[in-house]
């Protein structure tokens, strides 16, 4: 498989603090990757940098062979793009807004996604429950036809039935050659979905491994592997 995303020696500092420290990572095309790590380990920062939200880093990020920032932004859909949206806006107006700013936004796909989630487009963003808001975020994120989807804690505060619905929509809607990176600290939610697991700790990537390899060679669940890995590294530190 070709690599869709290649990150080399990425270091990012802000206000004298190191937020990401020498991160190198390659993500194959057409795969689902679990980005696992404690709160504060650097998951969201890494996703922000991949999405092109900040550029003053050292090292390189290459997406689908591209290094040109505006081109790269058109290849990535990040679930946090809704931060800063006006909360008194109706969902349908927000969708129109995204349709104008993102050339690869598909209103057809969006409409099908929101109907799968039973969302009412006449509602305002501020009227949505936490779960409905998540569903709306996922709908907007997946309605863009891109190469790389970054879903930051998509199941945070979502009950298990709704989780399943979100997962089904991810599986049904991701384009064949696209990849998805999902960050989570409740690994069990997404364990079945993953091709690979990337473990991030103390602002750097400490491991990348095939999900079925964990089960086959270590006879461990992904959760056990992830937790033991964290513990092991702590013990040696």
């Amino acid at each position, binding site marked *: 498989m070709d690599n869709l995303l290649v990150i080399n020696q990425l270091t990012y500092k802000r206000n004298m603090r190191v937020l990401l420290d020498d991160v190198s990572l390659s993500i194959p095309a*057409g*795969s*689902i990757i679990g980005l696992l790590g404690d709160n504060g380990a650097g998951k969201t920062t890494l996703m922000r940098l991949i999405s092109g939200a900040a550029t003053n880093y050292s090292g390189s990020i290459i997406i689908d062979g591209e290094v040109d920032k505006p081109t790269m932004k058109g290849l990535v859909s990040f679930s946090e793009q809704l931060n800063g949206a006006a909360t008194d806006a109706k969902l349908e107006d927000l969708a129109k807004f995204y349709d104008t700013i993102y050339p690869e936004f598909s209103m057809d796909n969006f409409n099908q996604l929101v109907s799968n989630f039973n969302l009412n487009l006449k509602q305002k963003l501020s009227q949505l429950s936490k779960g409905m808001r998540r569903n709306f975020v996922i709908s907007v994120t997946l309605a863009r036809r891109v190469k790389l989807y970054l879903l930051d804690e998509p199941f945070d505060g979502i009950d298990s039935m709704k989780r*399943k619905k979100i*997962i*089904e929509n991810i*599986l*049904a809607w991701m384009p*064949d050659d696209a990849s998805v990176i999902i960050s989570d600290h409740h690994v*069990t939610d997404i*364990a*079945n*979905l*993953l*091709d690979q697991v990337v473990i991030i700790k103390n602002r750097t990537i400490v491991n990348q491994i095939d*999900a*079925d390899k964990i*089960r*086959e060679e270590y*006879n*461990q*669940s*992904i*959760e*056990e592997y992830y937790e033991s890995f964290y513990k092991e590294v702590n013990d040696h530190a």
Partner: protein
Amino acid sequence: MQFDDKVPIYYQIKQYIYKEIIIEHLNPGDKLPAVRQLAVDLTVNVNTIQRALSELVEEEVLITQRGKGNFVTTDMEKLVSLKQHVVEEQIEVMYDHLTELQVTPDEVLEYLTAYMKQRKEQDNG
């Protein structure tokens, strides 16, 4: 479908399809759902389904028709030996567990016969 997260998912999908064939939810010559559909139904990713299916094709349990999809083999001999193989695997697990407890092969047979007698009465009663 509930997965055991300690067992490779592709392996569990293979077992699931074996079972569907053995209990005739899938019959000889039946077409399997599209890969993407199976992925959504079982909530696993497309690559994992692909891996399970390609191993089943290699084992000739499934036959791929170009552009049409995957079909259950119509080779009855193959299907009979599939069932034999799956049953044997289950017995093997049980046998290994019992010999670990130092139960002798003769005792295994005795225990099994007694258990089946008891179970039959239970299930019929």
